[in-house]
């Protein structure tokens, strides 16, 4: 048992406790892993809609005349080319090409709003501030001033539009954002993004309003099947949707090129140099391994660290795994040496000394937003 006294709490912490959630230590935060059976929560998001507390994530605002130029020196994606009002996936890499985090960049007219992972909040902020020196911009930590929740699933529009004024939420395109009055709160940032492979929104508002917004959404969403969803289901949903999780598919030792995250990396000449660019170009030219998806008909669940074999030869290792109620088999992601990545290749994973057959599967396993 971890010492829950030292863990950080989101503004909705006590609401989760009242809902009977099982709470765990997640990146130093006391967060709900599940309110009920994890697999039922996955199915609820796939078939109806789910509500997620994302208060633990970091929210930073780079503001000033040089904001975009500065971000382009640390981010792998090409910030200057993101249309105003659009959002792009990106990474912050070190010189060796390995990421310190993966992030979302919200492109504003002059400034850039950035959402980062809970576990990397502090070092991201330090990194940004260090590299902002010499630029005419400021990195503001808005994490404590803005709370964040996600509404994910096919019924998201029908639910959110009931409590929103001044913004046609259904008209916001995927990976774009707008502002509206939500629950009477003016200027709420509404973003058509998520981490589930479903349609949905992430919305930002003052933490003093968190409980009211959360409860109002659950109230108007109930007829649409909306339920609170914990981090356990969130992990399965993102894995089914083929989305990387820092600490699994990418980390201090796993670069985004081999992870298949090229869509978040710009090698355009106009972008100019940025941290990690040379290393990423080298890896792209000479990759050693690649990320694959695997499915297994066995009962046992693939988990991070299990080794993969092809015959007697060790060819890779798992970085994520889960039961997948959507696919109907157990699934995982793994790094394999090149030559073992063809879909349909038969491999075996070593589960604590026992072998279980698995197959290389196409990625993503499931997505309604990405085909």
């Amino acid at each position, binding site marked *: 048992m971890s010492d829950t006294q030292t863990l950080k709490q989101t503004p909705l912490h006590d609401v989760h406790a009242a809902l009977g959630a099982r709470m765990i230590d997640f990146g130093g935060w006391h967060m709900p*892993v*599940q309110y009920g*059976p994890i697999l039922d929560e996955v199915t609820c998001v796939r078939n109806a809609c789910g509500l997620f507390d994302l208060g633990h994530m970091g929210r930073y605002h780079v503001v000033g005349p040089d904001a975009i130029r500065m971000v382009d020196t640390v981010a792998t994606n090409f910030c200057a080319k993101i249309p105003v009002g659009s959002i792009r996936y990106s990474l912050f890499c070190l010189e060796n090409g390995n990421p310190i985090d993966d992030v979302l960049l919200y492109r504003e007219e002059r400034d850039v709003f950035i959402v980062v992972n809970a576990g990397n909040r502090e070092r991201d902020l330090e990194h940004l501030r260090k590299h902002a020196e010499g630029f005419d911009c400021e990195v503001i930590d808005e994490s404590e001033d803005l709370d964040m929740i996600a509404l994910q699933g096919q019924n998201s529009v029908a639910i959110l539009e009931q409590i929103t004024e001044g913004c046609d939420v259904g008209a916001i395109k995927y990976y774009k954002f707008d502002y509206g009055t939500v629950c009477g709160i003016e200027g709420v940032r509404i973003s058509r993004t998520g981490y589930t492979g479903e349609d949905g929104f992430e919305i930002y508002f003052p933490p003093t309003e968190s409980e009211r917004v959360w409860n109002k959404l659950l109230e108007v969403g109930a007829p649409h099947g909306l339920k609170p969803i914990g981090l356990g289901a969130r992990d399965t949903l993102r894995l089914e949707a083929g989305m990387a999780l820092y600490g699994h598919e990418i980390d201090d030792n796993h670069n985004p090129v081999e992870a298949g995250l090229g869509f978040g990396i710009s090698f355009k000449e106009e972008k100019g140099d940025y941290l990690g660019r040379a290393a990423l170009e080298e890896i792209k030219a000479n990759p050693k391994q690649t990320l694959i998806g695997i499915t297994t008909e066995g009962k*046992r*669940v693939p988990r991070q660290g299990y080794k993969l074999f092809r015959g007697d030869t060790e060819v890779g290792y798992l970085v994520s795994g*889960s*039961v997948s109620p959507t696919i109907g088999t157990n699934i995982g992601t793994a790094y394999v040496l090149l030559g073992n990545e063809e879909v349909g290749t038969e491999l075996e994973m070593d589960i604590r000394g026992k072998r279980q057959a698995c197959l290389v599967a196409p990625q993503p396993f499931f997505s309604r937003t990405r085909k």
Partner: protein
Amino acid sequence: MRPTDRKYTKSHEWIMMDGDTAVIGITDFAVNELCNGNEGDLVYCDLPEADRLVEAGETFGEIESVKAVADLSSPVAGTVIENNAAIEDHLEILSEDPWKKGWMIRIKPNSTKLDGLMDAAAYDEFVAASAE
């Protein structure tokens, strides 16, 4: 209080003498830690075949939920006589009745003395302390 007709380990197994054999299972606390009362979250249980020799504290099997794998450790040394194969396909038995229907293995212990194990009162205290 939990059943007083058996002894308990710190790794949350129970053992009950039955003549010169002993029956071993896991406690309600162990089941709950794995699946938080959601029996559908249990996915796999591997139990040893008859004639397998086990040492005290040795892993005799594994149980797995959606989010975790746990080793099953034998409280005493002995020889496995039979396993409760019904569990492997009906893991819900473990959350419904961990004390009787949810038994896992029957062994012939090398010694009929259950030394160094907790009684129900001590185990209740141990669980209460670890849950804080």
